[in-house]
């Protein structure tokens, strides 16, 4: 079985109004239940805004710590799933459900390692 990362690409800044956010949370919860029921679930989580991110990197033997996300952009990863799927078609089907639930684009990307079924 292959594993895929489903990244949620959220627009930077401005959380949607409560009623919209509530519906998204409900739909995401339903999707999580479905993933678990069908044995596709590995892990998932939502992230705080990219303004809370910190980057560490080694430069000329100095450990550099900087405020903010590594790449500045209009969209950042707002959350992700790790799922198990037989092939890309199955993973894309979960991706379609995820983009409907989150109402933002989902990037589907394979992991290098397969897992036991």
């Amino acid at each position, binding site marked *: 079985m292959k594993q895929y990362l489903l990244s949620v690409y959220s627009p930077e800044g401005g959380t949607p109004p409560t009623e919209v956010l509530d519906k998204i949370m409900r739909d995401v919860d339903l999707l999580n239940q479905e993933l678990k029921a069908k044995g596709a679930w590995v892990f998932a989580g939502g992230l705080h805004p990219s303004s809370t991110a910190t980057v560490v990197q080694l430069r000329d033997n100095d450990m550099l710590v900087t405020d903010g996300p590594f790449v500045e952009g209009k969209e950042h990863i707002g959350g992700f799933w790790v799922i198990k799927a*037989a*092939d*890309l*078609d199955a*993973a*894309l089907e979960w991706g379609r459900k995820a983009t409907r639930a989150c109402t933002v684009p989902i990037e589907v990307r*394979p992991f290098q390692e397969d897992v036991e079924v």
Partner: protein
Amino acid sequence: MPALAASEIERVFREEYGRAVAVLVRVFGDIDLAEEAVQDAFTTAVQRWPATGLPPSPAGWIITTARNRAIDRLRRESSRDDRHAQAALLHARDEPPNEQVEAGVVNDDRLRLIFTCCHPALSTSVQVALTLRLLGGLTTAEIASAFMVPEATMAQRLVRAKGKIRDAGIPYRVPNQKDLPGRLGAVQSVIYLIFNEGYTASSGDRLVREDLCAEAMRLGRLLANLMPDEPEVMGLLALMLLIESRRAARTTPSGELVLLADQDRSLWDRAFIAEGQDLVRRCLRRNQPGPYQIQAAINAVHSDALVASATDWWQILQLYNQLLELTPSPVVALNRAVAVAEVEGPDAGLTLADGLDLGGYRLFHAIRADLLRRLGRSDEAALAYEAALSRTENAAERDFLQRSRDALL
């Protein structure tokens, strides 16, 4: 035993390469391995067949030889602890090496492979290149030359695409009924893109380009054989046959473009026309019209007319009305305007054309120029020819536009 001509082996290669690769991909689940093994098998065939003659089932021979080569290679590699090789061997474990069985199920394998090559997770240009490479057996150099990109660029594009199929797990499978219409649409547009690339011959090696048309028709025929219940698949094949039937009449021996109305219709290929029209009739009986079928029907009406003046433009206009309803695009509306000009007069056609936002499209200006010329508005026609010329790269088309503009003076 008669000597076997090299052209005969070439023919077997053209016809059976895709088949053999498709079977090997199913057996081993690895495109690179499949391609290498099939190429190996053909190399052996080139050495052996001139002496032995063609085997009873050349496809079966190639597939069995390729399979044995692949298994030999995998055994060598898996003994060195290569995980890929072990996986591919495991994949192949339950496959009976039987030439008869293989020759029977191969059709399904090619169908699977077409859907893999035309998977929506791959970009259109990659879909086209993969289809030509894996199912058509064209070399990377041939594909690069047909699409006017450096060979290294095309090679890299193919390597990346095969890497994505492997690593992202794009399946070798005919899509389920729910996804089939959309996925089949992608396969059809890849085939039609290949055909148009060969037909339009915007520049580049002319022979390679004509090969593209032949290849597209071969793929269209294959798809029609594999999916006989899909009227649009038949419509696409009919459309290509009917357009291709006019190839000899479309240019003069010196390469000048000849418009449909001025073509020597005795040069049209009657066999292609008969086959295309028969397919159109069979489609119509299904009564599930689609864009390819309607375009084929329009071409079938043209093919019916022994002289241009006998063209049933009223029927063509009805078909364009139907096409515009199904695919409301400005290009279809422009073609419909041409039919309107024939039925109601150039004035009516021009009014419709002028309402379209197609200023960047060379044929928009060429069609306007022709309508203006017919209305005796020479100055405006000359400007429109200029506009068309500035947007046309194809030498034959440029020459035609220049001659038409000069004739106004």
